[in-house]
């Protein structure tokens, strides 16, 4: 298949359908409206079901019901809507329901703005909802990668019985890029014997639940979850290492910000400064090891996290660098996008400072 120009949001929707997603429950919010809109047209064509929920709260709970009933199901929203979904998200995690949640992040806090941002990192990776739980969080840097990751997201969700969040920013959602829909590698996936499908008289009843009124049981459940999370950490951590060889400064950036940083790296190269980048593709599990290793490289003088936020992922960079190398931060927020030029300037300042 030749490459075609696709708008990010629509490509994400089509990728979900290609991955077998047949249920979508959502609620309008800029800048992700093209996802539900596309779904409303396409789902009936593939005998699936698109439903506009009365709210984001209802949408995530419809996802809970459909996922519990064994379907491949997705919802999408943007920051304020994702905040509203927090209770439902921890319910999905607690009841171990596979589903895919897309967050096309916009500026905050509060009503904020509608331009691209990455300020929902903490919420996505540390736990916006209550209790101990984890989402798998995928951060595509291009429309093509969004398409690939969305397809894998459904498999990951099913393999681990865990919600997967695909986190992009307004740019990923709105821009058009060439895309090729290639089949993602199939994983062997467990059968959903646990789903509520009606017993059909063929099995014991199934129950979808996250209530464990006996604290000892509740703790056991948590431990079970954390064993699963450990496995996910081992199997699914993904990262792009770029230009690390001999790099004096290592940028850490994800999503579209990483592309800006790539431009900056080229610009620095022209000025004779070697810079590299670590691009987390999974925000959780976070590629701590890649950063730890880079921190051990002799050439590396400093890290610089670049984010569209006031500084969130930078904490994970610090955790990974563990004091071995200084970790700097440069960010724009509220819908402002860093420019390669500014990144270059910051980097030069830092290297000046370190030298």
């Amino acid at each position, binding site marked *: 298949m030749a490459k075609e120009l696709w708008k990010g949001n629509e490509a994400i929707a089509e990728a979900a359908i290609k991955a077998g997603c047949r*249920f979508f*429950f959502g609620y309008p919010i800029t800048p992700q409206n093209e996802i539900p809109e596309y779904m409303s047209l396409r789902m009936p064509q593939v005998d699936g*079901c698109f*439903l506009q*929920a*009365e*709210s984001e*709260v*209802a*949408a995530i*709970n*419809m*996802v*809970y*019901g*459909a*996922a*519990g*009933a*064994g*379907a491949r*199901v997705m919802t999408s929203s943007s920051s304020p809507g994702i905040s509203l979904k927090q*209770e*439902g998200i921890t*319910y999905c995690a607690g*009841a171990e329901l596979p589903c895919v949640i897309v967050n096309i992040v916009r500026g905050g806090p509060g009503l904020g703005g509608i331009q691209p941002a990455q300020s929902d990192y903490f919420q996505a990776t540390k736990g916006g909802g209550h209790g101990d739980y984890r989402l798998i969080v995928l951060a595509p840097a291009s429309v093509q990668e969004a398409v690939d990751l969305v397809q894998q997201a459904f498999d990951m969700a099913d393999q681990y019985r865990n919600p997967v969040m695909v986190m992009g920013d307004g740019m990923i959602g709105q821009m058009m890029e060439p895309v090729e829909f290639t089949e993602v590698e199939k994983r062997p996936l467990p059968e959903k014997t646990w789903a*509520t*499908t*009606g*017993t*059909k*008289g063929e099995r014991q*009843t*199934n*129950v*979808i*639940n*996250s*209530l464990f009124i006996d604290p000892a049981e509740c703790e056991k459940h948590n431990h079970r979850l954390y064993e699963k999370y450990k496995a996910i950490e081992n199997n699914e951590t993904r990262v792009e290492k770029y230009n690390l060889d001999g790099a004096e400064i290592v940028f850490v950036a994800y999503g579209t910000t990483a592309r800006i940083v790539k431009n900056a790296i080229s610009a620095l190269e022209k000025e004779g400064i070697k810079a590299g980048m670590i691009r987390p593709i999974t925000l959780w599990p976070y590629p701590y090891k890649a950063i730890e290793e880079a921190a051990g490289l002799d050439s590396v003088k400093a890290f610089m996290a670049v984010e569209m936020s006031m500084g969130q992922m930078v904490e994970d960079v610090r955790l990974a660098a563990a004091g071995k190398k200084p970790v700097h931060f440069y960010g724009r927020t509220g819908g402002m996008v860093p420019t390669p030029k500014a990144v270059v300037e910051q980097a030069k300042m830092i290297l000046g400072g370190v030298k």
Partner: protein
Amino acid sequence: MAVIFDKTKGLTDKTFHYCPGCTHGIIHRLVAEVMEELNLLDKAIGVAPVGCAVFAYDYFNCDMQEAAHGRAPAVATGIKRVHPESAVFTYQGDGDLASIGAAEIVHAAMRGEKFTTIFVNNAIYGMTGGQMAPTTLVGQKATTAPLGRDENHAGLPLRVSEMLATIPKAVFVERVSVHDVKHIIQAKKAIKKAFQAQMAGKGFTLVEVLSTCPTNWGKTPLESLKWLEENMIPYYPLGNYRSPEEVR
């Protein structure tokens, strides 16, 4: 000897955790009996609320999901859209359905979601210890209305069936009670009709069941039945508010 009354297969053997005399137990049995009688247990998927009936998933002998507080209609929507042939029901209290879950029930009704809601109105938050519900009567005491509900402060109790009956796709809406055997038999009939209307694909169906909470009403189980009859029924008139031709 013929068995003329026995525990329905619609219930598991687990003993209810409800307080002595709490009519949640009666309502559970009625729903289970109806499902057995209509041969729906094999294709039933129930949704338990957050409320005293939170453990309903342990009692109904069919597939069950436990929903977040108030969101059972959304969960049921998700389920029924995935399995349109199945028999889906939610079992919800008045806090769950009429307070936090008001938007979800209104919209399930508006969309005409094809499931059945059993709405247990006991005029109180049972599970959390007796706080005021939207359905708490004026003057009735609750732990968050220590002097009794004051209509000037907290408004008048919400009549859910009347409100939902204004929604065209809420095709079956009936209010029943379980305070004596006669009404229990009527209640079961209504529940049966609701499931039948659901299976006929008519639209959204709801049975509001007036129920007791001896513990938080501070009354004995017998006093509670009486209180229900004398206080709740006058404000919450029993009867059918909507039903499609087929089940009339």
